């Protein structure tokens, strides 16, 4: 199943999926019985499928699943579900993310993004405040993305955490560095982060995926993901 040259090598995508899965299962957070995942979010989707295949009873609504799409009230149903309090956890990204947890999906420069235009706010302005738990996720960890103050606030909220390609931040009125991915250091994160955050004297390393997690990711999770994210599956787990 897995291309031989990849066997044994843990990809960044696999690591991030496991990080997100552990945050989903965080016993200190309110339970995530129903999670919604957007179209362009294969890693959060993999994390959710991992949680499911680990045996947890969590309902997943994949927004762009082509077959078996659970929404029969049209595309407003996700937002109505959230308004009803039936979505416990959502993932958001941002062209810019700042230290107050604000995200910017509008763009940089003069409104509405005359310097660099991002796609737009999607449902973030609603979901971020209405859904109890939000995990911010952005692979690119740079001063371009993680800024002192976003140029425009698409949505404001209090995330559970911010997961990047370099580290995990937890949030409680401001960000605190929680763990460093393998190969990163307090300095590499500091150098690439535009906003101020708390950094404890000792920052643990993000735990690597367990053998069980890897097997699930490369087996049943991959199978579930194939229809919705074929390109992602090919890139991370090779052909067939």
């Amino acid at each position, binding site marked *: 199943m897995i291309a031989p040259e990849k066997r044994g090598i843990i990809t960044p995508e696999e690591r991030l999926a496991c990080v997100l899965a552990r945050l989903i299962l965080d016993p200190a957070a309110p339970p995530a019985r129903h999670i919604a995942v957007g*179209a*362009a979010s294969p890693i959060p989707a993999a994390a959710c499928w991992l949680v499911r295949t680990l045996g947890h009873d969590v309902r997943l609504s994949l927004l*762009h699943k*082509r*077959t078996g*799409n659970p*929404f*029969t*009230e*049209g*595309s*407003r149903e996700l*937002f109505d579900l959230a*308004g009803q309090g039936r979505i416990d956890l959502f993932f958001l990204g941002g062209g810019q993310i700042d230290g107050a947890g*604000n995200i910017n*999906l*509008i*763009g940089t420069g003069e*409104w*509405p*993004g*005359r310097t660099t*235009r991002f*796609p*737009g*706010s*999607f*449902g*973030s*302005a*609603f*979901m*971020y*405040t*209405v859904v109890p738990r939000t995990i911010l996720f952005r692979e690119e960890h740079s001063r371009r993305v993680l800024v002192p103050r976003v140029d*425009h*606030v*698409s*949505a*404001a*909220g209090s995330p559970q955490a911010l997961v990047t390609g370099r580290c995990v931040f937890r949030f409680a009125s401001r960000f605190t560095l929680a763990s460093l991915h393998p190969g990163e250091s307090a300095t590499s994160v500091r150098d690439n982060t535009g906003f101020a955050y708390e950094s404890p004297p000792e920052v643990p390393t993000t735990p690597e995926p367990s053998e069980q997690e890897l097997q699930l990711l490369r087996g049943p999770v991959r199978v579930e993901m194939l229809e919705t994210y074929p*390109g992602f599956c090919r890139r991370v787990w090779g052909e067939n």
Partner: protein
Amino acid sequence: MTQSVLSLDDLAAGVPDGALLALPPDNSLPPSALVRALVRRGVRGLRLLGVPVSGMVTDLLIGAGCVASVQSSAVSLGEAGTAPRFTAALAAGSIEMIDATCPAIHTMLQAAEKGVPFMPLRGVLGSDLLAHRPDWRVIDNPFDHDDPILLLPALSPDVAAFHAVLADAHGNVWVGRRRELATLAHAAKRTLVTVERIVADSLLDDERMAPGTIAATYIEAIAVVEHGAWPIALLDEYEADSAHIAEYARLARSDAGFRAYLDSHVFARSAAAAE
């Protein structure tokens, strides 16, 4: 039936210059062939509404110079990346962008569907969107204390257009589970639809087809266009032509590339004749 079955060009003629035209995004039956016909016709000054976001046909209309403004919650080619003509037009200042957020657009259409002047929505209050939407209003919830809530005005598009799977001889059209198109048709002043094919039996007589059907009441005119969503996917009828969309995304990065795309796939006699 009171609906007319028209040629694609006659259907396109039903979209006047300057109309507030509502279009679904790439996961929700966009009228791709109709939009190409609109480009061929040279429609101008359209005010586009994404329901609730916008995809490839919006980028195409912008690139072809047909658009004055876009109201949407996002404009994107999905997996194929950013919408290049949209981005270029914004940088050039040649279109106006009216940013929204998905549930706000659904809510504004639902208000029009219900015939009420406004409808409330939770959330949004911390967003900079508000400062740029003078038509949106925050009031104190009259049923509670210290509870500000957003009110959104009803929004009734001049024209809604989408590509449905099929219509029946009475003018009812079937959109499967894409029921946001029903809300849209209810809210719009006029709804123009392209379909893959027309069936004889009434969709409303079949309890299994009726729930995914928009009644003819709401439909002004229909044109039959096979593969009318192409290169976008159509439910379980056909998949997206990802290679073509990627080619579009690549070509549309430059003015010249976009012109070449239009020449090949919109204006070329063979392209037009296929529709």
